[in-house]
């Protein structure tokens, strides 16, 4: 009788032990999931804030892993007594830092804009480096304690080697779930801020279970329970308020630079600033911003374009930003889209019948192309379903693109452009490539030699391609009256051009949207502006100089660069009249578009060619931090 009782007792004890071990495994799984999501979230947020995604992503992941290492090395130095209570503290601290991480990062960014605007570029870099990485380090360091502590805990229940390895294994499973869920299920559907709050919430719950399962209830423990609840309440509030918090930071990012000269504005709420519409997708954050302020450049633009005369209802002052990068201003977009669409067609003898448009999901480029009655079919490839939806449904976009993506001649395909051209058997007369500025290896593929070879396969013999070449204009200099390209460290022109050439395009010709400086109407507007600024007298010489400055700055700022390439050598570039109406482009400006002094390419220099096996784009620039367009 007593024997049986004893045995039952032993069995009970073993079951309890296994039960506790199972609970340790579960906690390991959850905290591992939380840690990896914090890490990915931090890397994601910093890459969005900073311009050069590769460097910042690597630094962030690196610092995180490094601080994990330091944390787990130091965990051995801690007294093993009360390790559960210590793990609890680690989890609560982690939840705290995780919850504030994204907001903290945005705050660092706002202060950084202040430094940048005041010309302290190096200080801005150092500040964003240390500011952003301090929180990465804190979270990584704390996460580093988790695994050794959990292993120790498991070892108090069983000394078997198996148990340690199992904790390690389950830690990896938790990481797996986090690594897969983050890009596939979290980023597409939730705001970064929300993700931080929700994961912190889960983390607090894990801490709560930890103490409720493993330590006896005493007075001190009660305090811990209370701490959990006190923490959970504001967390659940901010989870539901996260849209407002995000809006606040967006407003600051877009509108703060105008108020940048007053440091106090860092803390103001920007309640009265115009609203910002934000949409999230798996690929990007889409912001529609209202720029209501007086902008000299917009006023000067009126001197060059007839858009607002003939199209009174065209929306003004709306700007599109993708991941915080400026795309266009509705008042001035034609300087980009008209040159992009029409210059290549006007330069060739024949108007294409079948056109392929890669990217350009806003539909503005397609709007221009639809002006040609000769174009029978446009296949448009856009990767982001959310962008395509906005272009087809959103009132503002429909007003701007005139419903181009709903046109019968347009066939919209939602897929990755790289895969599309690689697998497509169709042939086109013209191919337009409009992709985001390459900031990482992901976008760099869309500017690679391999990609252009696939594009060339989709092209008819006499056809052409034209691509947006972001960053090239930064390398254009005015020298003795002509615009000089080439030989500039900053400009990626060589990388683009040699890559296109290496893909088998015979002629590669750059062109720019090059407005004239001697526009009388523009000079008159500049004159009025100067008179409004100087109440005291100004000599006529000084005035002429100031006018010249304003207009040439405007012309330089509004330059966009493109590359036009053909399979066969272009016979001659001349203006062929096509029966379309444009607001900005005319024969004179067409000719100016090709007025670039550059060395034509004869032999490919392979060290510049951007290949998927060895990328040369993006050209890395440590100092670059992402800012709204108008402050740069």
């Amino acid at each position, binding site marked *: 009788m007593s024997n049986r009782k004893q045995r039952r007792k032993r069995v009970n004890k073993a079951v309890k032990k296994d039960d506790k071990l199972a609970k340790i495994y579960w906690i390991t799984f959850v905290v591992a999931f939380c840690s990896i999501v914090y890490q990915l979230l931090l890397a994601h947020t910093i890459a969005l804030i900073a311009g050069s995604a590769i460097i910042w992503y690597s630094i962030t992941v690196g610092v995180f892993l490094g601080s994990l290492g330091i944390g787990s090395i130091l965990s051995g130095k801690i007294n093993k007594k009360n390790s559960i209570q210590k793990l609890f503290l680690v989890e609560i601290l982690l939840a705290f830092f995780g919850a504030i991480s994204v907001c903290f990062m945005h705050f660092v960014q706002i202060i950084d804009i202040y430094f940048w605007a005041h010309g302290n570029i190096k200080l801005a870099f150092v500040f964003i480096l240390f500011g952003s990485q301090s929180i990465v380090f804190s979270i990584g360091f704390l996460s580093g304690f988790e695994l050794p502590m959990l292993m120790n805990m498991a070892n108090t229940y069983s000394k078997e080697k198996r148990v*340690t390895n199992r904790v390690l294994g389950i830690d990896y499973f938790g990481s797996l779930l986090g690594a897969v869920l983050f890009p596939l299920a979290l980023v597409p559907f939730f705001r970064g801020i929300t993700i931080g709050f929700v994961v912190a919430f889960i983390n607090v719950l894990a801490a709560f279970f930890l103490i409720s399962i493993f330590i006896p209830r005493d007075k001190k423990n009660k305090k811990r329970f209370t701490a959990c609840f006190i923490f959970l309440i504001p967390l659940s509030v901010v989870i539901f308020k996260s849209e407002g918090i995000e809006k606040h930071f967006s407003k600051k990012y877009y509108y703060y630079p105008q108020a940048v000269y007053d440091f106090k504005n860092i803390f103001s709420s920007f309640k009265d600033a115009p609203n910002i519409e934000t949409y999230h997708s798996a690929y990007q954050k889409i912001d529609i911003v209202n720029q209501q302020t007086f902008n000299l450049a917009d006023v000067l633009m009126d001197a060059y374009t007839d858009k607002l005369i003939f199209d009174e209802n065209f929306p003004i002052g709306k700007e599109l930003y993708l991941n915080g990068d400026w795309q266009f201003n509705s008042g001035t977009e034609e300087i980009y889209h008209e040159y992009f669409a029409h210059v290549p067609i006007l330069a060739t003898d024949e108007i294409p019948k079948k056109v392929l448009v890669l990217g350009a999901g806003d539909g503005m480029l397609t709007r221009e192309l639809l002006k040609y009655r000769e174009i029978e079919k446009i296949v448009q490839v856009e990767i982001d379903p959310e962008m395509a939806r906005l272009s087809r449904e959103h009132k503002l976009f429909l007003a701007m693109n005139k419903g181009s993506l709903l046109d019968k001649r347009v066939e919209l395909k939602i897929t990755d452009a790289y*895969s599309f051209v690689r697998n497509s058997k169709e042939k086109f007369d013209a191919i337009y490539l409009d992709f985001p500025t390459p900031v990482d290896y992901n976008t760099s593929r869309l500017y690679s030699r391999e990609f252009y070879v696939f594009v060339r396969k989709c092209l008819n013999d006499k056809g052409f391609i034209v691509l947006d070449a972001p960053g090239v204009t930064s390398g254009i200099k005015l020298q003795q009256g002509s615009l000089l390209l080439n030989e500039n460290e900053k400009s990626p022109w060589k990388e683009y051009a040699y890559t296109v050439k290496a893909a088998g395009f015979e002629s590669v010709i750059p062109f720019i949207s090059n407005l004239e400086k001697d526009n009388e109407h523009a000079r008159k507007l500049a004159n009025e502006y100067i008179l409004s600024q100087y109440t005291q007298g100004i000599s006529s010489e000084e005035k002429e100089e100031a006018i010249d400055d304003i207009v040439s700055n405007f012309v330089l700022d509004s330059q966009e660069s493109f590359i036009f390439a053909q399979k066969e050598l272009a016979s001659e570039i001349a203006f062929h009249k096509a029966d379309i109406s444009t607001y900005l482009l005319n024969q004179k400006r067409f000719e100016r578009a090709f007025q670039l002094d550059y060395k034509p390419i004869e032999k490919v220099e392979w060290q510049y060619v951007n290949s998927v096996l060895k990328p040369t784009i993006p050209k890395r620039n440590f100092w670059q931090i992402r800012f709204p367009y108008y402050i740069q």
Partner: protein
Amino acid sequence: MSRIKILYILTFIVAFCSIVYELILGQALSLFLGNTILRFSVTIGVYMFAMGIGAMLVEGKIIKKRIFYFIFIEMLLVLIGGFSPILLFFAQFVLGGGFLFLLFALILIFSIGVLTGFEIPLLMELFKDETKDGNSEGKVLGVDYLGAFMGSIVFAIFFYPKFGLLQTTFTIALLNCLVGIFFYLKWSKKEKWSGGEKILKNIFKTQIVFLVVLAGALVVSGNLTESLVGLYLK
């Protein structure tokens, strides 16, 4: 240098190599199948999952023969990691871009993950042989994380843009191979089980062959890249 310091360095290097193999495979996979975000998460996910399985598979028998297994695993890692991009190029040529190709790529990633998962528990045991320090787990993990940290930074900022995908692979595999050889020279005498010596010697010879092949591949990697691109563009 004390054996313990050597072990630290070895841990660092093997973690460094593993993460670079993984990044290379993720990059290569997204080249063939597009949709980078999906490919990278699948790669990282499968890799971590496999590491978990690897870590859990290490049990008594394996721990007993830890020196043998560590050398053996390093050899396999060099073989699979060092030649995986080339294998992928040929696989996509033979299998096309369909399900079979994806399966093949996932098997490669999974194998590297499992082998990497083996490493850490084995290293922890090897540490315990050398020291009575109670925190060898924490330290091994720490150095392992630091290796991964350096690997991910150096790959993105230096190796990929400066060396390209192939040359990086060969360089890393070469480094990994050297680790295996060095470990054999320093530790193999400690392994005492009948017949072990002979097998270890054979592994050592294989490692030397790999070393020569990899060095040769590194020399011709420029031409190799050209022909692989040709294959890819077909």
